[in-house]
């Protein structure tokens, strides 16, 4: 099909072995003039080596302060069909369980009211519907809510759409009901999800076990990661079967051929805390030294399983590298049972938000605020005692913070003079 605009540079992106987004947009351009103009605008951006989108503006549908990201083209004279090209974020079902019927319906609605282009899924987890006009926002929202029972997700300075791993629905290692936790957060904090109130974005992500399949520790301001506080369950017969070559290691992830597992080299020596021992017949684990890295369980899934006294570790402060560089979450609550109705968790969340709202600067993520004011201030605000599990090496990193008010006589110190001698 002949396109309205010549796209020699974009055409280069169709070559090679990988699927091409250019091919996808061209396919859609046969039915949607919006997609033709999108290709033309993109080609022009490549030619000029600068973007032609003006971002910002509209935020949502009536009563909502998020879920729509306004995008406008700065050359509507050349590309009138993408003069408005707003993005809609649709809250995905927990763990992304859809029926094919729901997905077809979602695509039909989008093709009727928007460009038909989707991004399934965005890094927030939402279904991203790319490109529609302002007058179509309310009709789309009406059909999403009435025909599909789906809602818009979070954007801007809102709580963002919470995301969880597949959890107990399909994973034998999950220590948490991640779907229920995500549903609870979504419903409990509807106001925070749809109406902006924070200094910046705030993300929750829940992983059922320390394998952390949704990368909560790297991406969420509040990461909920499943763990256990009793012992790893061991089936010694199955351990011997791995060593004897009767079972395929790693659940077949690295090849299905049967081979003898070198348990010393592949498991024991790779344990980060050296908390395991193999005497040729039995595997011994000193669980008190285990840091829940999951390596041994991943290698021998038929022999080892997480314990049965399960719950979650709550970590805070992860973010991507926009202002201060990437940051991983830090352990704040080493173990919480995380059982419905999750009251303990809600209390923690609300204390955390109050502190962030009172002290956070504009566009300052929770992790950056903790870094600026210190972990001690954060722990005081959320009423959690310092714990050696919050840090990497307790003997080297001081984790007990004395407050002058708590010590008889107190003391005074000149923080500015200290910083002159010890640069941060």
């Amino acid at each position, binding site marked *: 099909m002949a396109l309205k605009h010549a796209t020699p540079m974009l055409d280069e992106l169709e070559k090679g072995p990988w699927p091409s987004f250019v091919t996808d947009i061209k396919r859609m351009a046969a039915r949607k003039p919006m997609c033709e103009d999108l290709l033309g605008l993109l080609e022009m951006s490549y030619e000029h080596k600068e973007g032609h989108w003006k*971002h*910002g*503006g*509209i*935020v*949502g549908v009536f*009563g909502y*302060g*998020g879920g729509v*990201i*306004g995008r*406008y083209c700065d050359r*509507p004279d050349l590309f009138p069909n993408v*003069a*408005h090209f707003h*993005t809609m974020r649709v809250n995905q079902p927990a763990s992304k369980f859809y029926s094919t019927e729901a997905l077809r319906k979602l695509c039909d609605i989008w093709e009727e009211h928007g460009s038909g282009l989707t991004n399934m899924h965005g890094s927030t987890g939402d279904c991203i519907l790319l490109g529609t006009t*302002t007058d179509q926002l309310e009709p789309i929202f009406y059909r999403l809510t009435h025909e599909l029972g789906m809602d818009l997700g979070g*954007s*801007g*300075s*809102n709580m963002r759409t919470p995301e969880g791993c597949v959890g107990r629905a399909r994973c034998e290692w999950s220590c948490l009901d991640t779907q229920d936790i995500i549903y609870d957060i979504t419903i409990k904090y509807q106001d925070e999800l749809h*109406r*902006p*109130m*924070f*200094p*910046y*974005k705030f993300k929750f992500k829940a992983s059922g076990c320390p394998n952390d399949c949704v990368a909560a520790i790297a991406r969420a301001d509040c990461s909920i990661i499943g763990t256990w506080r009793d012992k790893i369950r061991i089936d010694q017969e199955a351990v011997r079967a791995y060593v004897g070559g009767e079972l395929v290691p790693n659940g077949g992830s690295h090849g299905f051929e049967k081979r003898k597992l070198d348990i010393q080299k592949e498991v024991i020596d790779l344990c980060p805390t050296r908390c395991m021992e193999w005497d040729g017949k039995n595997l011994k684990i000193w669980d008190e030294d285990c840091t829940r890295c999951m390596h041994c369980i991943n290698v021998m899934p038929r022999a080892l399983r997480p314990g049965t006294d399960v719950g979650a570790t709550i970590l805070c402060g992860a973010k991507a590298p926009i202002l201060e560089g990437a940051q991983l979450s830090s352990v704040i609550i080493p173990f919480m049972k995380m059982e419905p109705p999750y009251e303990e968790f809600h209390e923690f969340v609300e204390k955390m938000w*109050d502190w962030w*709202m*009172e002290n*956070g*600067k*504009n*566009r300052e993520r929770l992790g950056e605020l903790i870094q600026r004011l210190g972990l001690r201030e954060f722990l005081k605000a959320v009423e959690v005692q310092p714990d050696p599990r919050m840090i990497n090496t307790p003997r080297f990193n001081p984790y007990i913070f004395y407050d002058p008010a708590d010590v008889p006589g107190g003391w005074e110190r000149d923080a500015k003079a200290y910083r002159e001698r010890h640069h941060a």
Partner: protein
Amino acid sequence: MSEEAKAKILEYMKTQKKTKLYFNDLCKAVPELKMREAKKVLNELVEEGKVKYWSSGSTTLYMLPGEDDVAAEEEKMK
């Protein structure tokens, strides 16, 4: 109380040089209110159409309906 706070916020917005303001900045207009209460007042102002949201996609700001308005910008495109 709510009406008084609304008036203070609107007055504050009118006296600022910037057309778009962060939530934290608007809270300065009503220091007697807790942040969550201030947010409720702002939501009411948005519902009444006296204040509008503006979002870059990652951050949300508040503005008075006026010239620097998305609706006005869209009108120009027609």
